[in-house]
């Protein structure tokens, strides 16, 4: 990757980084053919942000495809540019002061230095001063939220000013706001939790006239609650760039997408989970033993339940499940902790149907295990390639294999060939036990390894399944260079439901 941002655009880029920094702690950088993607997800996985800067945004843009990445055996033939993530903090130091950037920087070069393994930001300032930031990165998988903006019945477009003015009326420590939309009125309220005492808390309500919006389309009346902090991050960016924000959403529990689109130069999408109210909770979860417990933790439900069911039932039922689960509407602190605990043991998805019976069996177990971990109230399961590989070496307790489901492999992948090959190996999941990190290699595992190699040869011809790309909030590592280092293994992959085209 090698690109140059002209001076006039540096401010926008800097603002984008600042806005992302208010959401997540790691910045995923992915050079794509159609632009440079910067993405992040917050620690509780309830918010995802993606900026895509088109080649026209840059003075020079080369996504680096065609370059060989570091030649690890598995990645031969790799045509995709490298994906990496850097810590938000380090990137923020480069773009700390937008004001000085705007005043002094004439252009900014971003390139990947593969020999030094650094992502290099070079600020060419006035008077010939060049500031070079060499940032350490970790190669990683694509971070992709699964959402669709086009299907949403409700859509609002407003100037940043309007939304900023509205949001200002809430307290700085206000965590969540509720947006109530009806054809004739739009209300914003602060969300008051049941605890400690709602009668002791200030309630703020704000009414916006539909005429004030640039565009308004209300398909269903809805009342959705989402985090204010992330919304402020979005508004800060849109206010700085003076671009309107459009909100696309459905009902409670379904994600809301904020998007900012500058005609050709860049687009930004922010996906925020919304709280699901008790009304939208779905029943029929007999095969999900912990559900009732978790659903009462807070009165929010989450889509995860839908996804759990979808997996446990037959494929056809997946039709009902939908495009996106960016994550739990509302992780409680403990839940996010659990996510972290389990991250290492999370497995990615089902495998293609055309697998051998042996694989089928494993996929069943996988699904069972998956549903089990879904019970932990997670639908955004993230894991990294290395983990999966390690996991795949673990013996699976037989009692995990319960229900039979086979689904298409649905992992988001930008580099379908190598990753598909890996998916074939992956579908094993360790017990969700207190010690998830034991890796014994048994004969079974050895066999599996062999299988994986066979399939590896089979799969490369498989065309990339584009339609899945938007289906997952997953990440896929393009290299396995770090597979030996457990320290770098926190790559994530989020699971979501199958689409109907499976059924």
């Amino acid at each position, binding site marked *: 990757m090698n690109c140059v941002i002209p001076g006039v655009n540096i401010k926008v880029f800097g603002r984008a980084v600042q806005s992302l920094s208010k959401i997540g702690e790691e910045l995923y950088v992915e050079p794509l053919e159609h632009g440079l993607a910067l993405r992040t997800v917050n620690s509780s996985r309830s918010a995802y942000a993606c900026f895509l800067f088109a080649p026209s945004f840059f003075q020079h843009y080369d996504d680096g495809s065609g370059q060989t990445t570091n030649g690890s055996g598995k990645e031969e033939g790799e045509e995709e540019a490298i994906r990496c993530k850097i810590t938000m903090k380090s990137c923020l130091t480069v773009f700390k002061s937008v004001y000085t950037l705007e005043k002094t920087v004439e252009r900014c070069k971003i390139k990947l230095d593969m020999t030094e393994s650094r992502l290099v930001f070079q600020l060419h300032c006035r008077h010939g001063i060049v500031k070079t930031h060499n940032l350490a990165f970790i190669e990683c998988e694509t971070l992709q939220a699964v959402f669709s903006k086009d299907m949403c019945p409700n859509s609002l477009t407003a100037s940043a000013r309007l939304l900023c003015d*509205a949001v200002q*009326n809430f*307290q700085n420590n206000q965590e969540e706001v509720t947006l109530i939309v009806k054809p004739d009125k739009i209300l914003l309220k602060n969300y008051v939790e049941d605890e400690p005492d709602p009668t002791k808390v200030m309630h703020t309500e704000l009414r916006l006239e539909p005429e004030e919006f640039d565009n308004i389309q209300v398909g269903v009346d809805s009342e959705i609650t989402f985090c204010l902090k992330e919304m402020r991050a979005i508004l800060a960016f849109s206010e700085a760039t003076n671009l309107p924000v459009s909100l696309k959403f459905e009902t409670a529990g379904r994600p809301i997408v904020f998007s900012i689109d500058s005609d050709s130069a860049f687009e930004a999408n922010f996906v925020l989970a919304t709280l699901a109210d008790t009304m939208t909770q779905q029943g029929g979860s007999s095969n999900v033993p912990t559900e009732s417990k978790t659903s009462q933790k807070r009165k929010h439900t989450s889509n995860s339940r839908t996804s759990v069911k979808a997996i446990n039932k037959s494929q056809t039922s997946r039709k009902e499940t939908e495009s996106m689960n960016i994550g739990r509407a509302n992780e409680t602190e403990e839940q996010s902790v659990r996510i972290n605990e389990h991250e290492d043991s999370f497995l990615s998805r089902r495998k293609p149907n055309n697998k051998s019976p042996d694989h089928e069996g494993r996929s069943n177990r996988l699904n069972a295990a998956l549903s089990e971990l879904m019970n932990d109230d997670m639908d955004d399961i993230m894991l990294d390639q290395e983990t999966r590989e390690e996991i795949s070496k673990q013996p699976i307790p037989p009692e995990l294999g319960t229900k039979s489901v086979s689904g298409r492999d649905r992992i988001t992948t930008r580099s379908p060939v190598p990753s598909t090959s890996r998916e074939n190996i992956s579908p094993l999941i360790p017990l969700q036990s207190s010690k998830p990190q034991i890796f014994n290699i048994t004969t079974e595992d050895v066999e599996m390894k062999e299988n994986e190699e066979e399939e590896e040869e089979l799969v490369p011809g498989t065309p990339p399944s584009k339609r899945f790309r938007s289906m997952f909030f997953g990440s896929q590592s393009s290299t396995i260079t770090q597979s030996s280092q457990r320290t770098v293994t926190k790559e994530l992959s989020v699971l979501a439901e199958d689409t109907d085209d499976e059924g």
Partner: protein
Amino acid sequence: MRFRGKLIDVSCIQHFTRVLGTISKIIKSCVLRITPSTWYFILSEKVISGGIQIWCELPQGHFFDEYAMDGVSAEDNEIYLEVVPENLIKALRTAQAAKWIKIKLTKKHAPCLTVEVDLPTVSAHSRLVVHDVPVSVVPHRMWPDYQEPKLPKFDVSICMPQIKTLKNIVEKMKNLNNCLTLAANYNGELKLSVSTDMVSVSTHYQDLINPVKRDKDSDENREPQEFSEAKIDIRRFAQFLSGQQVIPNRVVCNIVHKRVVHFYLQHEDVSLQYFMPVIAT
């Protein structure tokens, strides 16, 4: 029980916000007494819980353009509410440019002082923001706890120098010790001193005004230059000084020797009395 009031004038809104801001800086929770003529913010702590007493009067006509109230009964035409002034301030924070602000007593999820703010917008639309500030109604039998404190006979009263300079000094002294000795005499002198085992620091002010002349008869055994002093909690004093958002026309400090420190702030029609507990020596 009914109350509604409306503020229209921008300067009234801003002044009202500043007065409330000052109160919110020095008290967490207090009683708001609403009478047909005046708003009172009252804090009357028991000695055991600190012993601070605050009495703040805001004549309603000074702020409100419309004002209507019905008290609990015709003879007791007053309302006593327990409020958190900070909440009111939060509600008023974005209202500085408002076209109008309505304050009403409402019964929603709980008794509330509802602050309705009509904000200006870029377009011609009005934008109404409603803040419900929870309050609790103080029952009639508790009212006697919130009567205006009786003023004792002070040994000395003196006009304080500028709050801002005083604040800077006290902030520095705060690092030395927890208590400060405030001393004044009828010669227009004020002395702030703090001492530790290692050091003793005092700041003297001269040529200040004594608003009340010495009563020759009762004070015959005291010389004008004799200091009356009292030891107070320095953090509380600093908090009081730094909380001032209105620059009052007049700040008077009254001292009863080793017994009482009383500050009286006056700005236009608004007045605030602050009884600061004295540390026994």
